[in-house]
Structure formats: structure tokens, C-alpha cells
């Protein structure tokens, strides 16, 4: 099912990337999950009677499903068969498939306005869906954590004896990005403040990470809502060498305001490091959207034609424009994004380093 022959991918386009993220297995996992999303999208579309009225505010996810369904080239009998084939090849993808299945099952009621999106994917009948998905045992999710940690290492190469790094992480969730960062930079980190909007996630992150921090890192955990004014944030301005934000900023309502607030938090010489799913081309759907477009927060983003043309994930040009408009400079993608997409057209993973 791999649409690109791995052996023809010019891997020198990915030379800055950790070796785990340029194996044939890695590319194949991405394509398998993307194909599964396409097939599930098609099944959702076909399950709705012609002329079904989509509830107000749900037009964007419906349009997304239609586009993905039309582009679906999978000819297998059904998603159950494809799911079995994928798991026979890579069992570790089960959390990703489970989340996609939960979304697909709930979409018909959501599109008709009979159910809210949050209840579809935060379903008590599946209490551990998120825990399993946002884990370094899920290779698709771990990739973003690993790449962002690697980019943080690049950002502080040659810093010399500048003293221990003071790290602020936003959207820390269950702590999987922190695990990766501590593995990469643990012996260089002094103070490490993990923050998140969810007290539930933060408690679980604390339970996992306390007592296990690498090197001399001193961990602290506080609530921080990026959708509120930066003056309310529990992290002082000008105090942080590294602001680490993995798979969070695409979900904030006002990206420009959040980025300005994060830049204000950097100490002189500091760096913001993002880990994000990035659209290969402007407007191109990416497979994680099938799940995340169910969330009100993602659909209610403040839009801008240059910096945020549509809700959710951004393309590379939009990220550059957003960061530069917020006052960041020397924006660098790891790997260089356009080169990576030229080498592998479905590429959609990047870390971004930006300086204050």
C-alpha cells in the first residue's frame, strides 16, 4: 500500500532527523494509518442518507470527510479487513486505529447535531483511549515527541557552559513529550515546568514523571491555559531558555496571541521549539484531523488569510508567517520542510525552532 517506493525516497532530505524517523517502517506506518482514515471517512459518508442535513457549525468536518472520502484509493472490502491487515503488520498502531474508529462511529450523530464532538472521543466506555494514543508506545505519536526533543538538542548545540536550561513546556498532556526531552537533554535541564490546561492530564503526567526525571532536572506541574491572556499564565516572562510545545499550538484559539505570550517568556538567547503535524501543502487534509476536527476548540480558531487560513494544522508558510508576525526570528524547520516534501510528498511531520 505504500504509494512511494521507500528505496526511491532521497533520504538525504531527512539527514537532520533521528534514524528512527526515516526507516521504511516509519513511512509505512504513516501511509497505513492515512489509508485507514480515508476508508473510514468514506464509510462515514456512505452511511449517511443522501440529503442529510449537516448541523450548523459542523460544515467544515463534513467537507473534510467528503474530500478524504473522494481521495480514498483503498479498494479493500471494508475497514475491518484493513484494520486486521494493519495490525498484523504493526500491532503498535492499535491505539491510533482505536481512536479513528471511535471518531468514525460517532461522526454520523455529530454531523446531525445529535451529539457533541467531545463526547465522541472522550467516551467513558473507552476510558483509556487517550492514554494509549498520547504515549511513546504509539509510534505515530512518539515520532513527534522524538523529533521535537531532537530539535531542542539542535537549538542548544554549542551553548557551552551557559548553566542548566530552564524549560517551560506548554500542553504537556500526559508527559510523553517530556519523557522524550528528558531522555535527550535530561543532564542539561535544571528547572522544568510542565503545564497544561487539564488538571486530569497534569496529575497523570506528575504521577509518571516524578521520581524518574533524568539528570538533575527539577520538575514542577502547573495549570496554564494558552487561550487566556498571557498575564494570567503561571510562568513568568523572560525566565525560560526553552519553551517546548509539542502538538498543542495548532489547537489554541488565537495563535498570534499565544505565540506573542510565549515569546515574552523567553530569556535572551532562548528558543521556542514546536513539534507539529504540518500540512504538506496549504489546504491539504492530514490524517489526524479526522479525530481532532470533532473538538470545538479546533474549529473555533481565529483565522487569518496569511497566518491561519483554516482551523487546526498549519502549512509551513503559515507557521513562518505566524512566528515572524509574533516577533520570532531565525525560524528553522527540522527537517527542512519543503525539501522533505519534495522527497516524500506525503511528509507532514516537523519540529520548528524559533528565536526570540
Amino acid at each position, binding site marked *: 500500500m505504500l504509494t512511494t517506493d521507500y528505496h526511491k525516497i532521497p533520504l538525504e532530505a531527512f539527514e537532520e532527523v533521528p534514524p528512527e524517523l526515516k526507516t521504511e517502517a516509519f513511512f509505512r506506518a504513516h501511509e497505513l494509518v492515512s489509508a485507514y482514515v480515508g476508508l473510514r471517512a468514506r464509510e462515514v459518508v456512505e452511511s449517511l442518507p443522501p440529503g442529510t442535513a449537516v448541523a450548523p457549525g459542523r460544515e467544515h468536518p463534513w467537507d473534510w470527510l467528503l474530500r478524504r472520502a473522494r481521495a480514498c484509493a483503498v479498494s479493500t472490502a471494508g475497514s475491518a479487513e484493513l484494520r486486521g491487515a494493519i495490525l498484523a503488520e504493526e500491532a503498535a498502531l492499535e491505539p491510533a486505529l482505536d481512536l479513528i474508529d471511535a471518531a468514525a462511529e460517532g461522526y454520523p450523530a455529530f454531523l446531525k447535531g445529535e451529539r457533541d464532538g467531545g463526547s465522541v472521543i472522550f467516551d467513558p466506555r473507552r*476510558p483509556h483511549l487517550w492514554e494509549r494514543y498520547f504515549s511513546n508506545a504509539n509510534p505515530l505519536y512518539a515520532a513527534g515527541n522524538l523529533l521535537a526533543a531532537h530539535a531542542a538538542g539542535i537549538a542548544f548545540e554549542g551553548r557551552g557552559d551557559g548553566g542548566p536550561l530552564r524549560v517551560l513546556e506548554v500542553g504537556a498532556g500526559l508527559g510523553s513529550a517530556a519523557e522524550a526531552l528528558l531522555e535527550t537533554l535530561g543532564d542539561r535541564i535544571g528547572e522544568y515546568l510542565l503545564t497544561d490546561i*487539564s488538571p*486530569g492530564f497534569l*496529575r497523570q503526567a*506528575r504521577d509518571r514523571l516524578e521520581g524518574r526525571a533524568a539528570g538533575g532536572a527539577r520538575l514542577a506541574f502547573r495549570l496554564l491555559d494558552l487561550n487566556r491572556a498571557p498575564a494570567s499564565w503561571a510562568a513568568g516572562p523572560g525566565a525560560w531558555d526553552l519553551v517546548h510545545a509539542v502538538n498543542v499550538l495548532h489547537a489554541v484559539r488565537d495563535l498570534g496571541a499565544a505565540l506573542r505570550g510565549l515569546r515574552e517568556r523567553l530569556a535572551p538567547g532562548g528558543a521556542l521549539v514546536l513539534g507539529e503535524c504540518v500540512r504538506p501543502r496549504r489546504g491539504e487534509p492530514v490524517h489526524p484531523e479526522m479525530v481532532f476536527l470533532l473538538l470545538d476548540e479546533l474549529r473555533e480558531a481565529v483565522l487569518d488569510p496569511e497566518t491561519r487560513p483554516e482551523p487546526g494544522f498549519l502549512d509551513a508558510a503559515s507557521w513562518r508567517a505566524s512566528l515572524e508576525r509574533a516577533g520570532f526570528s531565525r525560524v528553522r524547520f527540522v527537517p527542512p520542510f519543503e525539501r522533505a516534501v519534495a522527497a516524500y510528498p506525503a511528509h507532514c511531520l516537523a519540529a520548528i525552532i524559533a528565536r526570540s
Partner: protein
Amino acid sequence: MPVSDALVLRIKQMLIRQLKLKVTPEEIEDSSPLFGEDPGGLGLDSIDVLEVVASIEKEFGVQIRTQEEGERVLRSVAALAEFLAAKGVR
């Protein structure tokens, strides 16, 4: 079925254990809100709902079947205790 002190304690211990709360059972008021940002409450959120509902089923053998039922019985420890007592849990 009346609500026993033992049941209330079991509920509080379950919440502390499953949600990794850094409080003692004595620090959880029976009638304080479990969810939301009320300063006197536990400050649980939608992520915690998932764990609480699963833990109630595992610990007490009782299912919370609908969102409406959940919103009613998970308002406070006291509300949850009344619900479970009515289901025959001691």
C-alpha cells in the same frame, strides 16, 4: 438504602487512588463539587470523568449509562454515594 460512612470513605479512597489526588479523604468535603473550577471543589475535568466512570464500574459494579445520569450523580461525593446506595452498594 441509607448511605453509610464506609461507602463515602470507599468513594473518596477510590477517587484519590485512581486520579492520583494529593489529598486525604478527610480533606474531601462530601458536598463539594467534584468537577469545575469552584475553589472549594476537587477541580476534576473531562479527562477525569473517563477514569471515574470506569473506576466506579470496576470498584462497585455499577454502570453510569448516560451523560445525563453522569452529570447528576457525579456532582459530589454525596450525590455519588446516594446513587450507589440506591443500587444496593454498601
